[in-house]
């Protein structure tokens, strides 16, 4: 029985810029990093495997540069890595991305858990786990912070909410996305890193997935980007001057004015 962990290479978010005219996010040239949230999903998959056996498959959709994050998964202990890569997979929206991922998952087969990080830090849409579950007609729980129980055909999980958590029982196979509270990801071992360097990565394209060409056309997209804009710059702060007593007095006045106190 397999656990499939969907992971994504994302740009280093510290260096992202936005071009409002071109309605585009400008990503840096640097090679990127594994989506930070995916590290928690991967760690959870590895812990489950260590307890229950089976195989962990890393699955990613992207260009050859995405091999990096799959090798990261292999170095940490994933057994197999599959990259869905094709010219036609470029610039897909969430709807079509989740469709392609679902085809990859079907082709891997024999799964009982499909794990995701709660979102990718580049697009931040948080749509993919739920959509993949729909394409596969599987139950789903998103934002899971703990597995309380897990068998071959059911799981008891805690879904994080704004002010606590829900306990959810779900039949398996299922799609689950996890939050960073779930664990502390391990780091790769020296041996793991070296093993992963030369490990084979399986690459599947449209033909391998038996996806018809027109299935991924522009007209199949469900979302259209209207505009892209950077977050407003932070307003300038104000530095109060004077003796400590004067500063304290001015600060108190300002806080009162803002009705904070």
């Amino acid at each position, binding site marked *: 029985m397999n656990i499939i962990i969907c992971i994504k290479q994302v740009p280093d978010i510290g260096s992202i810029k936005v071009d409002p005219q071109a309605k585009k996010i400008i990503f840096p040239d640097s090679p990127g990093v594994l989506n930070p949230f995916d590290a928690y999903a991967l760690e959870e998959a590895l812990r489950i495997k260590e307890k229950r056996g089976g195989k962990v498959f890393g699955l990613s959709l992207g260009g050859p540069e995405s091999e990096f994050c799959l090798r990261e998964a292999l170095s940490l202990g994933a057994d197999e890595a599959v990259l869905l890569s094709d010219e036609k997979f470029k610039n897909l929206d969430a709807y079509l991305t989740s469709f392609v991922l679902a085809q990859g998952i079907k082709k891997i087969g024999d799964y009982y858990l499909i794990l995701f990080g709660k979102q990718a830090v580049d697009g931040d849409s948080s749509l993919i786990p739920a959509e993949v579950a729909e394409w596969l007609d599987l139950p789903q729980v998103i934002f899971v912070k703990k597995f309380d129980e897990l068998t071959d055909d059911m799981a008891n999980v805690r879904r994080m909410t704004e002010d606590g958590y829900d306990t959810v029982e779900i039949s398996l196979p299922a799609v689950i996305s996890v939050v960073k509270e779930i664990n502390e990801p*391990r*780091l*790769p*071992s*020296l*041996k*793991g*890193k*070296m093993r992963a*360097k030369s490990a084979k990565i399986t690459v599947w394209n449209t033909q391998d997935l038996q996806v018809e060409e027109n299935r991924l056309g522009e007209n199949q997209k469900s979302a259209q980007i209207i505009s892209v804009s950077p977050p407003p710059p932070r307003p300038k702060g104000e530095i109060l001057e004077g003796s400590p007593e004067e500063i304290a007095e001015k600060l108190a006045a300002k806080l009162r004015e803002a009705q904070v106190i």
Partner: protein
Amino acid sequence: MVFELTEEQKLVRDTARDFAQKRLKPVALELDEKEEVTPKIMKELGELGYFGIIIPEKYGGSGLDSLSYILILEEIAKVSAGVMITVSVHNSLFCQALNKFANEEQKQKYLPKMATGEWIGAYALTEPHSGTDAGALRTKAEFKNKGYVLNGEKLFVTNAGLADVFVVFASTKPELKAKGISCFIVEKSFKGLNIGAKEKKLGIKASDTRAISLVDCFVPQENLLGIPNEGFKMALEILDSGRIGVAAQALGIAEAAFEESLKYAKERKQFDQPIANFQAIQFKLADMATRIEAARHLVYNAAQMSNNNHDFVKQASMAKLFASEVANFVANEAVQIHGGYGYMKEYPVERYFRDARITEIYEGTSEAQRITIFREISKG
């Protein structure tokens, strides 16, 4: 000479850097203050393979080359020289002694446990009356009942409180002095081996240093390491490669002290400008960077030569001598650039300054290195 690292060497360096920055840097000051490498860190070092770096793969290690090993030590030393020496004594002195001199049975018995960090190793050579004059050691080993009975005292044993097994040098033929020394694998559980209290040190405080005493400690014959009465030669040979490790430690400390100083000089303002604008500071930083660059070449070159089975005794001594003096120079200048702040524990240069000092002393003092270098350059 340009050092082109292989893809694999870069990979292990980056892996070690990532580990050191993420796991060790946040707790380096705490480890220094607590004077220990915590069990949590020891466990993770073991799980990630840092105790089996140079152990061959067939015994469960990573079987990495010397330069890869040195790159890893450098990355760890940059963050915590105390953690680094814990790793390096286990690898360079204990595991390397077994790699070089153990028979197949001994390797199979010990190395797999050492590779995972389930067992930690230490190296006991120095005694109260014999430091640099290691051949004058007084610990005795008498042959009795198919084994040896060891009596004596060893000082400054790194990892002593953590170790499960020690390489111990003792005299089997006292009348032959240095030519009558043998080497033994002594397990912590052997009756008569006593571990002393933890020493209080100036620097590398996280590392565990103690005296050990051997009182009628029986060591079975199968735990004799290498050839009897060749122990002194073995000790020196092990230290030859061990000192490249200390050279890497010195290099790491120097690099860390330099990086902190450069950052501080750009941030710290006096007379309405960053102090990096002042030539007095610029010259210091330029000298620090230049010496570090030179030290790095010596250290990597010595590692590369030891890897390729060249005679590297001279290069190892030169690397250790130069890098340790650079570490002390750079750490001293780093404190000076930081001014009063550099004297405070709040800034890491205070720790680098303390940590640097030992690199000119252990695994051969600077003076001993010069003796070795002269001996090598005056050969035929």
